[in-house]
């Protein structure tokens, strides 16, 4: 029974990593940039939902929508101001700018909402599911996270494969110049990707804080790095890869704690990552990088 309950904790943690990782992977896949500020957009999303429910007294679901709208706008603004001017710059320059944005968001949050941690109330209205006479408990948030995660994947898959903008995204991701010659606006496509990624970040932020109800300006930082690891783990740029990577990372983290050592749980997670990448250098579901000669 312990095993099952650890597995569920792992999947619960993993599904949240997965949602964050999906945002990372979307942006990476299309804009080819590591958006290290993604974790902080998550934090902003969580604060928005928090403000909406506690200060304005809104319904939790409405607060999620509000968070998504604010994060989408934030994502587009960040993209326009900080990343778009660097479209032709070396990717490292963009990486550093993203880190600057990350510092900015964290410190702005510190000034806006103070350093005092807030206790987040879960937006999930369901009770826990109790199985085997209550020996196995699956929380409502876990069920919702997994459900949301699956919905997001299906939605992203539909967008990417079936819609016109999705085709444009794939075209931009493969060959920016050729996509432009087809009439695709690269800037617009990347902006839309950021908008989607940021909306996902808002959802991830709300779910993260629903599962682990504490909210501080640094709340998004570590989950951000972990989710980035998850995205690479699954093969960065791949949507199913991000899902798989997120879930596996969560499970490894919990199992590492449970069966090896709570002291070394982070070291274990990262060691597994290294081993996976050595065996499969492009991640679990990553495509072989085409080297252009």
């Amino acid at each position, binding site marked *: 029974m312990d095993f099952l309950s650890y597995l569920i904790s792992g999947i619960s943690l993993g599904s949240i990593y997965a949602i964050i990782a999906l945002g990372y992977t979307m942006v*990476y896949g299309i804009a080819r940039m*590591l958006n290290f500020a993604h974790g902080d957009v998550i934090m902003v999303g969580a604060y928005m939902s928090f403000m909406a429910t506690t200060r304005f007294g809104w319904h939790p679901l409405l607060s999620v929508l509000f968070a998504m709208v604010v994060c989408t706008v934030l994502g587009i603004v960040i993209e326009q101001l*900080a990343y778009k*001017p*660097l479209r*032709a*710059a*070396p990717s*490292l*320059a963009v*990486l*550093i*700018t993203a*880190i*600057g*944005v990350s*510092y*900015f968001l964290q*410190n*702005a949050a510190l*000034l806006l909402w103070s350093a005092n941690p807030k206790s987040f109330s879960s937006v999930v209205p369901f009770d826990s599911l109790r199985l085997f006479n209550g020996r196995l408990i699956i929380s409502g948030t876990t069920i919702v996270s997994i459900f949301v995660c699956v919905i997001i994947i299906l939605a992203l898959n539909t967008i990417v494969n079936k819609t016109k903008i999705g085709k444009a995204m794939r075209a931009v991701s493969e060959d920016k110049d050729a996509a432009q010659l087809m009439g695709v606006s690269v800037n617009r496509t990347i902006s839309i990707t950021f908008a989607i990624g940021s909306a996902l970040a808002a959802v991830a932020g709300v779910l993260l804080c629903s599962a682990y109800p504490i909210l501080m300006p640094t709340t998004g930082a570590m989950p951000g*790095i972990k989710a*980035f*690891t998850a995205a*690479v783990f699954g093969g*960065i740029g791949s949507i199913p890869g991000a899902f798989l990577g997120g879930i596996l990372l969560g499970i490894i983290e919990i199992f590492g704690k449970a069966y090896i050592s709570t*002291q*070394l749980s*982070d*070291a274990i997670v*990262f*060691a597994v*990552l*290294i081993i996976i*990448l*050595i065996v499969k*250098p*492009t*991640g679990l579901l990553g495509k072989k*990088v085409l*080297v252009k*000669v």
Partner: protein
Amino acid sequence: MKRLRLRTNVDNWLTYGLVIVAYIAVRLLLAGGNISYALQGQLVPITVYIVMAVSLNLTVGVLGELSLGHAGFMSVGAFSGAITATLLELLADTTSTTWIRLGLSTPWIRLSLAMLIGGIIAGIFGFLVGVPVLRLQGDYLAIVTLAFGEIIKNVMSILYVGYDANGIRVSMDSANALKLDEGGTIIMNGPMGVIGITKLSSFTAGFILILITLIIVLNLINSRAGRAIKAVRDDKIATESVGISVWRYRMMAFVTSATLAGAAGALYALNYSSVVARKFDFNTSILVLVFVVLGGMGNIRGSIIAATVLTVLPEVLRAFNEYRMLTYAVILIAVMLVRNNATLQHVYKQIGARLSKSLPTRKKGSEV
């Protein structure tokens, strides 16, 4: 070709010159008592960050691989250096051999040994990390360096090292688990790190370390090995046919980079009375990366200047009070935007072209 080499030489001498002139200037100012405590306190960290930036530039700028775990090597160097220095001090107290005691009670000898050992151990780690890392490419390589950095941080913060009559004891559980004799000393105490370090570092030591770093790095870049490394950076496939030697050169650069970071780490640790694992986290790796990117990848002199300015900058911003780090973030973004703005770059180029008529230009290949 001859002209090119001449330019490279002039360029390198300019770099050495900059460092030496800066050192002398600071010494003079110090002698005149014209430097604030704030800047005095920053002199050693500045030299440390310069060495960190130059050594990371070897990986990022010259090898062409993004490393997000450079602070990990600094950590290894800092702790092995701090432990070495503490042990040497204990040894100096207990040994009966006069010349050893005299030698070890000389601070600069202990400092040099600590930096040497810190560097060597970090270099060994560099090799161990390099074996898997250099098999990978691009962002995958970057994430593995990040992973190693995190592992090192995690392990260092649960490492306990003690010393008693029976020798050195190590535990990953707790200080109690070291089971030290009466009179034994805990040198490294898990998350508390190494405490009670005798401050050995000095600005001059930092200056000498910078010179050594420059000699190693600039000679490596301009050697045959360096050219091979750069060839790999610019065109992997074409040079892959050259075979195994490329791997050796790349490993050489990576290990050199780790070794220098380790020595810098030792210098850093011995500048404060305590050092903790938490310091050498992802943010520190990123900080050093920012120096490199801002100074220009492959541009050693740029790294030196960027490391200095960006180390001093947050202190200058203290006037902004609670808006300090926000301002820092805005400056960072603004500098990246201005630096990479296409129109402005065009202006730089024109000015550069005008200047280059009168001055020897930088070697083009070393810039990105």
